[in-house]
């Protein structure tokens, strides 16, 4: 009897396993073919000599990686990190209060969240072009200020770091608001009441209860803003012009105009490695700063 039972259980177990595989198969196939394979191809390219008319030639070289550590490129990389961190912080400072207020707005919640994601209805490209009309010397802002007599000459905004930062923050703000809202929205009100009854004034209540409990949303939001910021090239291209190049523009340029695929691939891998390292460090720091157990 025990043998039969074992076999039936084994079969059922295998059935469940099969079903899991069947459910995973399409996604796995897709990712393997269109994510892993291109990445592997890029990795191989980054280690091969450059062809005369683009493409690669057979062989092995670390030249492209070496070439990246050139002051010019490192400066671009440094600028990209600084801007991405700045954009993330600005999004956090602007997005948290928005998410907080929406989470507390009762029956208006859904409408307000709808407004936050509304920009996604238009393509990012079109919206970035719209920013040009807003920021250029003869644009909306300058015209308004000139007509009001507040300035004599237009303020130079387009093709400055300010324009790029504005574009980044504008583009990624919803990615900060959404996860923070999600974690604030499910926050149990009685925890806040418990804090209050235990003597916590509003500020203490926020920093000791609300903020720690919404930290998963903050972490998700920061990653969702920081990583795409690092890789962005459209914003800096359209709003930053030739002077405000980010690493994304450099890579894009290698694959298009410069036709140096191996170097573009190598640069991509260096950026990927740095993002990975930055994320690991960030999560470590967060884990340490979370209130751990222990009173003393």
């Amino acid at each position, binding site marked *: 009897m025990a043998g039969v039972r074992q076999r039936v259980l084994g079969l059922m177990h295998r059935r469940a396993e099969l079903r899991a595989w069947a459910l995973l198969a399409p996604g796995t196939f897709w990712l393997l073919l269109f994510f892993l394979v291109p990445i592997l191809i890029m990795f191989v390219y980054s280690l091969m000599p450059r062809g005369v008319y683009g493409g690669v030639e057979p062989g092995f070289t670390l030249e492209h990686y070496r070439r990246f550590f050139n002051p010019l490129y490192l400066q671009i990389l440094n600028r990209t990190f600084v801007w991405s961190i700045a954009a993330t912080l600005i999004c956090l400072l602007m997005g948290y209060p928005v998410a907080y207020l929406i989470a507390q707005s009762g029956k208006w919640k859904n409408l307000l969240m709808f407004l936050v994601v509304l920009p996604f209805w238009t393509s990012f490209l079109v919206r970035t072009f719209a920013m040009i009309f807003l920021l250029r010397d003869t644009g909306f802002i300058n015209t308004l200020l000139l007509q009001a007599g507040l300035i004599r000459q237009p303020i130079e905004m387009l093709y400055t770091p300010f324009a790029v930062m504005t574009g980044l923050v504008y583009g990624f703000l919803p990615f900060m608001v959404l996860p923070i809202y999600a974690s604030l929205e499910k926050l149990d009100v009685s925890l806040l009441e418990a804090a209050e*009854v235990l*003597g916590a004034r509003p500020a203490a209540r926020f920093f000791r209860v609300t903020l720690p409990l919404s930290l998963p949303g903050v972490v998700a939001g920061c990653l969702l803003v920081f990583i795409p910021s690092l890789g962005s090239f459209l914003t800096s291209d359209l709003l930053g012009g030739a002077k405000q190049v980010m690493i994304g523009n450099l890579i894009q340029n290698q694959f298009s105009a410069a036709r140096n695929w191996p170097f573009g691939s190598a640069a991509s891998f260096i950026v990927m490695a740095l993002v990975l390292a930055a994320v690991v460090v960030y999560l470590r720091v967060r884990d340490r700063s979370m209130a751990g157990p222990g009173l003393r």
Partner: protein
Amino acid sequence: MAAPPPDQPIVQFTRVSRSFGAVKAVNDISLEIRRGEFFSLLGPSGCGKTTTLRLLAGFEQPDPDGGEVRIAGEVVNHRRPYERQIGMVFQNYAIFPHLSVEKNVAFGLEQHKVPRAEIPGRVAKALEMVRLDPRTFGLRMPDQLSGGQRQRVALARALVLRPAILLLDEPLGAIDLKLRKEMQLELKQLNKSLGITFVYVTHDQEEALTMSDRIAVMDNGRVAQLGTPAEIYENPRTAFVAKFIGESNFFEGKVYGCAGNQWEIRGPLGNFRVPGDARLTEGGVARIAVRPEWMDLFRPEALPPEENGLEGTIREVIYLGETMHVIVTLADGADCTVALRNEGQLIKPLPWSRGDRAAVAWPPEDCQVLEED
């Protein structure tokens, strides 16, 4: 400042109302809670008991013209919860999920700027008070605790601040029966040994009867009756209270006349007598409640003349061990429940069975004349 007089109530509600839109959740209630007593707010859901507790905690404010809430003699209508010196145990415990047990308990001490050095000792003492070993449980996270243990952490977290009043919002609702009985006794004991006033919200009448010094039965935003458990059970003022606390049979009739110190009532089911009562007037309507255990059952022909009796047919006999409930359908089709005590061998074999004609009977003095709800 002179010490307050010992008989000053710790809590006073004076004509307090709180509305949500058109709904009067708390409607003009006045009550006093004495220092150190175990006071329960009892009622069905939506009766206003939780709103009353929240008014006391400071999470709700009375309406602009909605009376006064006083704690230790001072009006606290607009004082925030953190300015009130109260502790509270929430229905779902509201333990901070990101803090360990000892940090949960230390939370209030830190907020009240208790010197750092004192905190670990007071936390350990509070945990011991609720019978959680600080060494075993101190470092655990809330998701590693059972429901009963969380309950104790919530209690320790509130008690560690030595509040003057502890508010408890149906704290035993979510734990199993055996543990609940144990906690009921423990809470009662803490109330007496610490001298802290407990204000306890529950919809469970048995729980309220077990633990309370006094109970306010609430209905529709008002206090239907306030008194000791015995007063409320023995002398329910309205049909609502009689129905909500324990079981009752209700009878109605016209007040016919006075005979000695008893009133004669004539009802559709027959005549009965009730003890003299100032609220009754000749020609008026009398409503009475009779507890099942105040009644007895006789063969119709054997009814003692000094008792009130109404005839009917036995619909169901329910054996409950300690007691036996006999449900008798009376002439108007209404059911009347009689509880017979199991007095040993006398009752075996069961003397009553379904379909028997019987008379439910009770002495005239064993009934409660009710007011309108």
